[in-house]
């Protein structure tokens, strides 16, 4: 494994000022590498939940409530769009802070959080609707698997929203500057991952019956 050559940004003496690790042998940032490693492991988490769902979704009794009874594809498509757009706003937030524009950064961070919250609102709506239609968590095996999978995703989104809002609050108080752009980047990575997982869930769970 060859060491990756990356342009250094500052004189060797302080090759760590811009958030990169000390004497980083690969020249990449510690925290960013850590986040990517974490996202790699999250693939296995969601993979397991998705596999469980796929295995169980059709193992319900003849008359029991199933996917085709409850899914509302038009609505889920709309909320997928919302989440997708939130990824765009996230990356706009990052690019803003990277060029030092703290105001735009705040605008886009807040927008991302709000769009994500709309997505969560949509999930709450969907789940409540399914529940009223008779699909509870313990109703059957499809219910358990479905709610667990989408619930885990929703919790991930919610945690992301809280982190985004925390960033927003810090920025509002004047503590989030261009030098801390990497922090925004890392939370952005998490957010995009959550979106990417939704891309997979939406296709496999909703669109492919």
């Amino acid at each position, binding site marked *: *494994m060859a*060491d990756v050559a990356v342009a250094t940004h500052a004189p060797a003496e*302080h090759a*760590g*000022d811009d*958030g990169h*690790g*000390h*004497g*980083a*042998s*690969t020249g*990449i940032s*510690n*925290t960013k*590498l*850590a*986040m990517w*490693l*974490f996202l*790699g*492991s*999250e693939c*296995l*988490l969601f993979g*397991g*939940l998705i596999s*469980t769902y796929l*295995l*169980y979704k059709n*193992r*319900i*009794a003849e008359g029991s409530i199933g996917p085709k009874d409850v899914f509302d594809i038009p609505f889920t498509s709309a909320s997928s769009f919302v989440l997708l757009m939130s990824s765009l706003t996230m990356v706009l937030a990052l690019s803003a802070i990277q060029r030092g524009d703290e105001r735009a950064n705040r605008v886009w961070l807040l927008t991302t959080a709000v769009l994500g919250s709309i997505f969560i609102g949509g999930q709450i709506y969907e789940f409540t609707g399914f529940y009223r239609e008779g699909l509870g*968590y*313990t109703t*059957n*095996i499809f*219910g*358990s*698997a479905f709610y*667990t999978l989408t619930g885990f995703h929703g919790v991930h989104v919610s945690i992301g929203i809280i*982190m985004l809002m*925390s*960033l927003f609050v*810090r920025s509002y108080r004047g*503590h*989030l*500057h261009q*030098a*801390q752009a*990497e*922090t925004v980047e*890392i*939370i952005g990575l*998490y957010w995009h991952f959550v979106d990417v997982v939704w891309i997979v869930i939406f296709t496999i769970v909703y669109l492919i019956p």
Partner: protein
Amino acid sequence: MAIIEQPLAIGTGRAPEVRSPLGVFARPTAKGGWRSWVTTVDHKKIGIMYGAAGLVFFLVGGIEALLIRIQLARPDGSLLSAETYNQIYTMHGVTMIFLVAMPLGAAFSNYFIPLQVGARDVAFPRLNAFSFWCFLVGGLFLSSSWIFGGGADGGWFAYAPNTGVAYSPGHGMDFYALGLQITGIASLVGAINLITTVLNMRTKGMSLMRMPVLTWMLLVTQFLLLFAIPVITVALFLLTFDRRFGANFFRVEAGADPLLWQHLFWIFGHPEVYVLVLPAFGIVSEIIPTFSRKPIFGYSFMVGSGIAIGFMGWGVWAHHMFVSGIGPLSVTAFSLSTMFIAVPTGVKILNWLATMWGGRLRFEVPMLYAIAVPAMFTIGGLSGVTHSVSPADTQQTDTYYIVAHFHYVVFGGIIMAFYGGFYFWWPKIFGYKLDSKLGKVNFWLQLIGMNMTFGPMHILGLQGMSRRIDHYSPGFGFEFWNLIVSIGAFIIALSVASFLVNVVLSTVRYKRGLIPPAGPDPWDARSLEWMTASPVPEHNFDEEIEVRGLDEFWHRKYGYDKDHKVVRIATGEEVAHKGDNKNVHLPSPSYWPLVVALGLPLIGYGLIFNLLLTIPGAILLLGGVYGWVMEPPDDPNKAHGHDDHDDPSPGLALASVGAEEVGNG
């Protein structure tokens, strides 16, 4: 008891000079005493704590093993009721694997990875501390099941539906599921930390192929953990939701398939055993060259085979399910893949032997262990290969033949390697050698005891003795060998006792000045951790080491003359750093990792007993994380450099944000 502890100056808007007015909320600065241990972020202290905890749990698991053996020494044993026996053997397995083998591996990882790559600490020191505390509270939580209604009793791999709430109505399995979730977080976080450390914090000139074999093995281990822990996380969540919230994941009446649990568990479970054994392989790869006065034979093959094992380990899990009914096609596939995993492992064994070939072998205590490990592990490995012959496994599985296999690889491969590591690195960690006569007693008792305990288990298994039976009836032919096995177990117990005696005696003697300090390099070793004072000073190395090749330390001591014979250039003492550089800035201690970790078992107890308990747990967790993130990077008075972003928080990385707050130098 007053909250106001000191007179405070009336200032003019700047943070006061004195540290303590911020009271308990400043970065702790304790240098010694229990506080320095509780707030430490030093990888060495954390490594020592992992080791100590692992050893204590080893005694716990060992006592559980001895109870098993007393029960099984005679037919129709009546020491333990069936209910108690099931709890004892389950907790023995769980304790030994999760609370002994993994933390002991973590102990070596934590202590030696930074040293062997020439770094000052790991990439995320507070995260490192959090890993340890998380593991400790998880282990205590799991063990607390004994007082809260009985230990887990479903076997260490907890097959559903037996572990569902219908068939295991007590709390034991809840403690199992939640406790392992907590320790799983510790391992995952530690893996991220150590991978980043190895990749990013190697010293100058240390390319990946110049790292010691131990570091390589530990790196592969961390990757295995990184990817395997999420899978058991899923499995444990599904089990917890079934048990606590009435989900249907393992309710066959609702259409569930019990094999789902088996698959999810073993997808984690098989990489897990390689997680356990690779550190041991690494340790042996360090000891044998040192005491053979030769470099490791075939470094690239050693590294490559470790990586190969890491990869191939993912494709063999269903060899634990040969009789579960996965279908002949799957059985064939997994049978073949399992057989071939013997190939890279064999390379390692043979390379170790080849390292010894032509060397000058000195039989110090670590070397005794390091020599025993290939032999004992091979016994276990070969019985493993016999398991991979799946038709034969239909006779062997769930008998003591399997117990024999894995105890040979685990005890002979892992525990003995760890003991070798203890003896080898004790002088480096604590400054003095453990007594070698007692060490030899320890070794021989252990070797004889182990073979006496686990050898006959092969016979018992082939004679048909099933696993997990709380008693066996007379007349089946199990009496004789069970008695031998039980006697052997007590011989191992004696060996463990001798180790403890050795530790105590040697420490006492050292404190009284009866044994000399070991110096930086008592064994004439090869890798970087020996290149600094013993015990290792807090800052590790006095100055950055520039590495020009594998076994850098060795090459600074020895060179070649014109006849290509080895000649000494310098002594170990001369090359090793003195450890007296006081100007190296160190990551500051912190108590937030402990605070965050404490939230987890509260949530656990809450989920089991009363949901209201989860609220303080969640507050500790949430508040702890934010407190961690917003913690000032350092003592506000001490001048510091650009170390603010050394200690980012778990995932939030706002430390640099927090750093701006309090007076930056």
